[in-house]
């Protein structure tokens, strides 16, 4: 099974560990991170009978719904371009450190920073203390290559039983990437992670909806900061949002085609906002 799909389509060999279920050999399992909120607050206490899922329009039988206790692998992707200096950089480091400090021993984390270059400062590891130490060496310089950074962070995702989450912080428009917006959106569709974006007031006017499209493609959210003082709070809320998600899994009822599968997940008989990625790619 390939690394970036493992969070979405899980082979029978590994799913027993991941979801505590037993599946027939050669059958794949689709797992989706699902956020359920009402009036902005997580809805607790749901079971698999509350969810309705379709895969390319075909109704699915939900195998399991789990909440909170599956470990996370959090890829921090932080903008360290020239505009992130001084107090903003200090606040960013503090926010990153706070998030890493809130992770559990079973979680993993990695650190990617970017300006016009992209650096993987800490590979995905359960050694959270080493990732926190990596935060200390960052400084703000250069232009902004956020699209390339997201792409390379996606590529640097390793096999893991954890739920992949990318937490991207940026405060400006891209002016140095090689890749296009569409390039990265396509890769995000093919990856298995959920992307949350914490966006600081941009010095450059943002002319596109790329970030909104990116979180939509992965079932994540945008968190808008009004000042650098908000960063720690928003990082914390993004993590809490991930913890409050349901992990919905199902075994597709028919042998699925290769390529894109549209997935729709909703609640039966309850009013709530359901947020999940819109589908998955079967390689």
């Amino acid at each position: 099974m390939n690394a970036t799909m493992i969070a979405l389509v899980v082979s029978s060999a590994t799913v027993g560990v991941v979801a505590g279920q037993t599946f027939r050999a050669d059958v794949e399992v689709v797992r989706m991170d699902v956020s359920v909120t009402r009036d902005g607050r997580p809805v607790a206490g749901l079971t698999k009978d509350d969810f309705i899922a379709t895969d390319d329009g075909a109704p699915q039988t939900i195998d399991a719904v789990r909440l909170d206790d599956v470990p996370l692998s959090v890829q921090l992707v932080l903008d360290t371009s020239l505009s992130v200096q001084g107090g903003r950089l200090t606040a960013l480091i503090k926010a990153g450190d706070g998030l890493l400090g809130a992770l559990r021993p079973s979680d993993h984390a990695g650190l990617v920073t970017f300006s016009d270059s992209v650096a993987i400062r800490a590979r995905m590891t359960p050694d959270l203390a080493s990732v926190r130490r990596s935060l200390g060496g960052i400084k703000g310089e250069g232009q902004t290559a956020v699209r390339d950074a997201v792409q390379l962070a996606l590529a640097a995702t390793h096999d893991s039983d954890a739920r992949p989450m990318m937490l991207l912080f940026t405060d400006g428009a891209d002016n140095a990437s090689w890749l296009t917006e569409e390039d990265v959106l396509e890769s995000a569709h093919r990856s298995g992670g959920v992307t949350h974006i914490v966006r600081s007031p941009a010095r450059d006017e943002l002319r596109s909806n790329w970030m909104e499209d990116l979180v939509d493609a992965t079932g994540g959210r945008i968190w808008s900061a009004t000042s650098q003082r908000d960063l720690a709070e928003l990082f914390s809320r993004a993590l809490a949002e991930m913890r409050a998600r349901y992990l919905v899994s199902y075994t597709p009822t028919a042998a699925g085609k290769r390529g894109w599968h549209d997935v729709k997940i909703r609640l039966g008989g309850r009013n709530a906002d359901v947020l999940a990625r819109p589908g998955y790619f079967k390689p």
Partner: protein
Amino acid sequence: MQGPWPPRVASAVLIVLLAATNRAAAQGRRPDQEYDTLLRRYTEGGRLEAVAVVAGWSGDRARAAARTLETGDPRRRAAVMLHADAVLSLPAKSAHEHLSAAEALVEAVSRDAGSRVSETRWRGLQALVYLTRNERVRAERAVNQALTIDVTSADALLVRGALREADVRESEPNLRGRWAPVHEALSETLHKIAQLYRQILSNHPDSLEARLRLGWILLANKSPGNAREPLEAVASRARSPDLRYLAHLFLAALEQREKRLDEAVAHAEQAHKISPQKSSYAALTRLEFERGNLDRVRQLGEQFAAASPTAPIDAWTLYLQGFTGTELIEWLLSQAGVRR
């Protein structure tokens, strides 16, 4: 560190230094021994060390040192490049002071040589330096100064093109995006930039830098069919690794746009083989995601993780800053007698 000088070089340098010292003394100016030593080190293999020292000088110190070089002193060319080199490692304010020290010397060098070729090319470098700092008005002024001397200056016109490209990127940050609508005004601007590069090629048909930029602009203007020829020419003919790298990277984008993924991967792999850089990692992982070759994506991700913290500056980043190859800098360094 540099080794002992060969006897002939040592003699030649000694004669030059003595002559310069005598001239300075005759004109009532005191020689600057530290500066003399740094210039010698700069030309004789200790370029980085000399630049590091001079970059730490104040503007007054730099200008005072430059003034000790008298008319006809051949070290003036080296001094110009020493200060220009220092500029590239300095914050803006200090950089301006070093650049002004170099600028005063450039005009003197032209008078010494009775030719303004070096001055024109140096103005091109000056414009580039300003462009890398996004000081576009100063860059444009330096371009105009170069074109006043030589209206066909490829160096200056390339910087002018790079300036126009920077303007375009500001109005459309996702220029290459296949869904980005290229509206009529933007398309017309890109057309004018392409014309500028064609103008360079009409006077300098061997300019692979102009050919590369022409290919890129044609690709950005949704004209991949016309972009192919100049890009393939650069890929096959350029000796500069950066030029070949960029040509293959651009050709990968061209093939991707034409939905020929295997050909796109082949070009991206060729670029990557020349020099693995952020942009080639990004291009390859993107294309392999598209092909569903996720094992290769993972392999590239691991390689990038190992290489990224110490990676040199990306050729694509340099392209955005106006640097298209190193021919200009190498020419100026060779004119300055800097041993590489």
